[in-house]
């Protein structure tokens, strides 16, 4: 992987010999997958707390009386987020064909969909009728959805950076890791939401 060791191959002074690439997958991708595995486990700890509050404490109904969850509003949010996974994929496929307009449009759309998700969630929070202080139920609900919202925020930040760089023409068919990495992260945020939604709202 001479790219890691050498930057663009210019020599400014001391340089290491290029490391031998012992994997076909670039290091940054391996790193990203491992980071996501770690993130999934962080969600795991919050899921654990959720199920303890739900199963071990043994509430009679879930959500416990008198609370209710806006299942259909959250379904709308789910649809928005799943759509954004397709748009980011479109952005990546576009730049692989050197189609910069498609890249910019795809990134922009993804960003807007993600932003819509966050705004709807914020609106939902203000109208739920319970706070994180209401029982273990409230804490674990806000814990899981809030942790996910935080990840959407981080994903949006990465997308915004990628968008700016895309507009400035930093990406090409040969060089698009700056799109691919936020893309992988965004897919993770999306898949995680499907799990959170199914657990918290549906079942």
């Amino acid at each position, binding site marked *: *992987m001479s790219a*890691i*060791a*050498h*930057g*663009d*191959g*210019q*020599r*400014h*002074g*001391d*340089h*290491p*010999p*290029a*490391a*031998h*690439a*012992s*994997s076909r*997958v*670039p*290091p940054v991708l*391996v*790193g990203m997958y*491992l*980071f996501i*595995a*770690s*993130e999934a*486990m*962080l969600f*795991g*700890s*919050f899921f*654990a*707390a959720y199920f*303890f*509050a739900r199963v*071990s*404490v043994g*509430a009679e109904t879930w959500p*416990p009386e008198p609370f209710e969850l806006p299942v259909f509003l959250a379904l709308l949010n789910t649809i928005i987020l799943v759509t954004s996974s397709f748009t980011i994929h479109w952005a990546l496929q576009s730049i692989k064909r050197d189609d910069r307009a498609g890249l910019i449009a795809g990134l922009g759309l993804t960003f807007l969909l993600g932003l819509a998700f966050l705004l709807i969630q914020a609106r939902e929070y203000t109208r739920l009728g319970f706070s*994180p*202080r*209401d*029982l*273990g*139920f*409230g*804490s*674990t609900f*806000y*814990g899981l959805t809030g942790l996910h919202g935080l990840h959407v925020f981080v994903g949006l930040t990465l997308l915004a*950076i990628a968008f*700016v*760089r895309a507009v*400035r023409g*930093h990406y090409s068919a040969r060089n698009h890791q700056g799109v691919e990495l936020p893309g992988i992260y965004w897919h993770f945020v999306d898949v995680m939401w499907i799990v959170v939604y199914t657990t918290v709202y549906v079942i």
Partner: protein
Amino acid sequence: MAVEALKHGHGTAQRPAAPRGLRRLTRGGWLRALWTTPLGFGLATALVCGIRWAAGWEPIWELQVLLTAWTIITPLAFLAGMGAFDYWAYWVSGRRTRPEDHSGHGADSWRDYLRVNTDHKVIGVQYVVTTFGFFLIAGLLALFVRAELAQPGSQFVDTQGYNGLVSAHAALMIFLFIVPVFAGFGNYVIPLMIGAPDMAFPRLNALSFWLLPIAGGTMLAGFLLPGGQFAAGWTNYPPLAEVNPVGNLMFQMGVQFAGASSILTALNFLVTIITMRAPGMTFWRMPLLVWANFTTSLLVVLATPFIAGSQFMLLLDRVLHTNFFVPDAAGYAIGYQHIFWFYSHPAVYIMILPGFGIISEVISTFARKPIFGYRLMALSLVAILILGFAVWAHHMFVAGMAPWLRIPMMVTTLLIAVPTGIKVFSWLATLWEGKLNLKTPMLWALGFILMFVIGGLSGVYLGSVTIDQHASDTYFVVAHIHYVLFGGSVFTIFAGAYYWFPKMTGRMYDERLGYVHFWLTVIGFNLTFFVQHYVGLQGMPRRVADYDPSFASWNMLSTIGAFTLGAGTLVFVYNLLVSWLRGSPAPANPWRARTLEWLVSSPPPKFNFEEIPTVVGGPYGYGVPGARHAVFNGDRAGTAEPEEVGAR
């Protein structure tokens, strides 16, 4: 500091010229950190007080909330000042990235060890020195504890102060010594062992190190707070953790920094090992130390988020008054213990597997024999990795958890003795009829096997539900943990420290003082902890500042042992410091070992290898005719006989 970085083949490093005047305040380094750190502190204060004032919350000056903001924002401001984020800030700003000029790489003077440095060898030394500093501090705390326990009754601390001492001793030893010191050794030797010029993500590596002093500083700062140090033990169980004074926050925040550091380093190790091995270095030719760090890193990446999550939830419970673990409001307090141990049981393997790796290297080298059952040694690491996730609730047999969970957890716990036993028998079989070379690292390795087997056996006792119910929360558990963590992990750390000292510093240590250190430690250690098995089974409870007078003489013995141990540690520190300054120069390969780090000079050149070696065989071919681990054949490609290296 004896680091004469060898000049590399083509040209010299062109570091940017040292800035003068006010420019020095804006370039990453201590001078910039000197103003960004107070700035961050002020910002955090203004943020908290401003929000509380605007929202009309009383009181505006709320220490617990302020501490939370301080311990998050101030360290980040410090890191930004040091320049840990400079490259990423440049990337985020949307400008075109610059080619890496390696200006942050390597050390020409001692000052280069005190800045954000991207060289894995410099970071390795930074890690090891820093963590040994925390080892001395935490050891000092242990001596306070033993002094208090020398006699029944209260000597010089009150009960809360005593709990603070015990908690800080454990937290520092675990999160700031044993876990990260292995990351330090790994940092130094893994890239060398696999034939890589550096780690995969050098800047991330630098950040990982600098998170560590922050974690330690945060935890130690707890001693200065009103109400004293965090005092709910290193396990920090609620509800005690949620009602204790504010010092408790310092554990929660310190653990977050230490955990982030260890996740990032583990991720770096994994990527480095997966993507940067030298040609021919297949997984089945990797030294066992690399295997050990590979499995450990997987554990870290997958388990550490659980302690992060548990401490986040505790923090929310304390500061935002949520109810994750509050039984009165339909939270589940024992849930904390499950989440905590789901990390902290794998964590005991995080604290011993790299040590297993060190012992494998040392024993094979100093017995002059190939390691017995190499593949099974590697696979047993993987078995421990998998089983390690399935035993956590054996820490909770008496906690009031679901009773049906006990038997499965007991079975998996006893099962884990199988792969561990494989390792012990493999080491013994390697020693069998070997030509033992009893240098200091080998002494520690032999001592380790003996001590670890004792600790392992008491672990099997405690793993069985019936005995655990009797021995839980007694000094029997204290004895067990110290036999596996001190007699186990710390002995391997000493073995590793002596083994790689010549490679890391370019100097030889004093063999005689190494012997003195070893024997003082072995005698002091057993005196301290062996008696605790007995008093524990007699019912002396742990984590209590006072005890029944009938245990007085045993405890006095234990205290004498602890101070002997302390004296041994002073010999160690003296030996290494003086040898580092004035020891005789070390040859490239003083132990006639065969792994790749011994192919290069001591200390290694700035970029490790002039040319990446080609690996042609396993690393432990001692005494095997014609066996070789690696060759350099770049310039001689095509010639009949590649130059043999490493085998003598």
